[in-house]
């Protein structure tokens, strides 16, 4: 296990070196929040891959496939399809209209403080719902992988992410995500090649062995998600939730124009499709070669399927090469968490410092140097909060938060963003209605569901998106219609729409 710590310490020192380099290039707000919009499509595509593939993707998808067969493959497919929504509906309009945050876009469209505040709420709720389980997961995982205690692991991850963001801003965050993405893809490629060598480049062997060993039922859907509507609800949550995640939106401000934003999505889609499809094969291979019993014995959730598979491929337990493979994959898993929480911290500090403090409280009248200072302090506050929440979350069931993050993103942020960009009549009351109803229905249904109440669940689905997303849209439309016509708002839409579609007059 010390090999893991050694490799991770090496990765950590590289990222801290990057942060030192980035900190010297982070002086203005544009540099802090958006890396001065100077990234290339390939850089942003890699960073998006680093941002979006959490440890749940890196370890979880293979684990689910190893233990539950096809349901794990569905978990891996959704996050890729989600990029179609991002590409077709929001990537370029976001680049064209926004500056640093979701609040910028909504505030810019509506020009009201109320709408800005609603967007801030949507951002902060989703980000913390996402951040807290990541921290808790980091604690559990690092403990599992390295033997360091839960608290120390949470503090280590929290301090590292705070240092990246507070000192190096978007530039450091981006490069931490790029390093992680490259390591993750390299680990995936190596494992895939080793599996292929083992099965003589015939993937059908993996299916055949799995069926022989675990029966045909293993390769069918419904082993993990028992309620059929949960399959569909989860799918909806993924496909529209990604487009409502503020920390993913932020990535589109780091490129110079809409065309680069477009190309960066294509980059990430090709990179992660290879990786996500790979996790399905990794899962099957782990079930075939390592065995479900050994995977469950190491971790009942299946999170160690991939590290164990890596050790098997490297030569098995006790061998030098096997332990190095295990250590490498485990260290990449920890780096994965670091990259994701850094993106979340940066996005949250943008909502607090840029949206709330500068634009909401101070009405935009804050001197540049002070803005950057406030942003750094906000990042530190978010870091401390994240550590506190992570430690508090030990032993608490945080699974509901994972569902909530993606569900609120799909049910509150996504409707409001899309209607803001494309619907002429949409107004402040609609923003409040959409965020309010989407948020409230997601939270209520999740709290009444089986994840929180177990067998006493009042509401049957684990993931409420199938109901809460239509409700969010309904709230947005009803709010808009109830508020009546607003001629000023609609005439402003012409100029806004011009910017959405052409990018002209955007900074």
């Amino acid at each position, binding site marked *: 296990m010390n090999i893991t710590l050694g490799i991770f310490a090496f990765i950590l020192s590289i990222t801290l070196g990057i942060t030192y380099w980035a900190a010297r290039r982070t002086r203005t707000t544009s540099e802090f929040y958006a890396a001065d919009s100077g990234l290339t499509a390939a850089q942003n595509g890699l960073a998006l891959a680093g941002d979006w593939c959490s440890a749940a993707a890196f370890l979880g998808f293979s684990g689910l496939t190893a233990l539950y067969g096809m349901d794990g493959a569905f978990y891996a497919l959704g996050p890729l399809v989600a990029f179609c929504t991002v590409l077709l509906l929001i990537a370029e309009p976001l680049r064209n209209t926004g500056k640093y945050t979701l609040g910028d876009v909504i505030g810019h469209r509506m020009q009201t403080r109320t709408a800005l505040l609603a967007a801030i709420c949507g951002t902060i709720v989703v980000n913390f719902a996402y951040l807290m389980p990541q921290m808790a997961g980091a604690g559990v995982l690092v403990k599992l992988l390295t033997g360091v205690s839960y608290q120390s692991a949470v503090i280590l991850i929290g301090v590292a992410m705070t240092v990246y963001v507070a000192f190096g801003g978007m530039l450091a965050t981006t490069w931490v995500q790029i390093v992680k993405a490259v390591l993750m893809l390299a680990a995936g490629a190596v494992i895939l090649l080793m599996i292929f060598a083992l099965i003589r480049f015939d993937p059908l062997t993996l299916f*055949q062995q799995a069926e022989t060993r675990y029966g045909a039922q293993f390769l069918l859907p419904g082993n993990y998600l028992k309620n059929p509507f949960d399959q569909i609800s989860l799918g909806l949550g993924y496909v529209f939730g990604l487009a409502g995640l503020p920390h993913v939106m932020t990535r589109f401000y780091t490129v110079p124009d809409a065309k680069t934003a477009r190309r960066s999505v294509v980059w990430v889609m090709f990179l992660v499709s290879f990786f996500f499809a790979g996790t399905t094969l990794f899962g099957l291979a782990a079930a075939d070669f390592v065995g479900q019993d050994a995977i469950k014995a190491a971790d009942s959730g299946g999170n160690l399927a991939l590290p164990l598979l890596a050790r098997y491929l490297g030569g098995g337990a006790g061998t030098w090469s096997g332990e190095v493979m295990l250590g490498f994959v485990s260290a990449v898993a920890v780096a994965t968490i670091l990259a994701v929480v850094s993106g979340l911290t940066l996005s949250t500090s943008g909502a607090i410092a840029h949206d709330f403090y500068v634009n909401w409280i101070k009405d935009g009248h804050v001197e540049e140097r002070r803005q950057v200072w406030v942003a750094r302090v906000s990042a530190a506050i978010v870091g401390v909060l994240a550590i506190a929440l992570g430690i508090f979350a030990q032993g608490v069931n945080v699974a509901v938060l994972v569902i909530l993050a993606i569900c609120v993103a799909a049910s509150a942020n996504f409707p409001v963003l899309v209607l803001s960009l494309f619907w002429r009549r949409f107004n402040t009351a609609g923003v409040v209605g959409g965020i309010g109803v989407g948020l409230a229905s997601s939270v209520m249904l999740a709290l009444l569901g089986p994840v929180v109440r177990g067998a006493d669940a009042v509401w049957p689905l684990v993931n409420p998106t199938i109901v809460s997303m239509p409700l969010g849209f309904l709230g947005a439309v009803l709010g808009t219609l109830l508020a009546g016509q607003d001629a000023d708002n609609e005439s402003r839409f012409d100029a806004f729409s011009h910017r959405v579609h052409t990018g*002209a007059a955007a900074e």
Partner: protein
Amino acid sequence: MMVAKIDSQNRVPIEPMTDGNAMASSAANVEAAERAGLPAMSRAPSIAALIETKIRLFTPMIVIYVAGYIGLTALAAFAKGFMALKVIGALNVGFFLIACNYVLSLIIALAYVRVANGILDPMVRRLVSTPFGKGAPR
């Protein structure tokens, strides 16, 4: 009502377009387009035409990928027997369709880029070179 100053830093404040200007410019551009012998669709570079083109091109793409993915999850939920049918060896319809869905997503992405580069970008370029565009007096 207080108005949030989002554009405090370095942005030009947005002014609503006036109909008179819009008409004048689009008329001028129709003439220019006709002289240049451009296809009919792109004759009048207006935002409305751009949006109309986007809706016409993107609606089928959105329907295809959403229906493809949600349809597949619906099959997983309600048609397990169909998903269990064997395609080759132990590979069943379910895994085969999942693989197809990966390919479909990438095809949609490439189709979008092709349309955006080939049809939309030229429209946008003509649009922003009208008097509303960057650098022109507004």
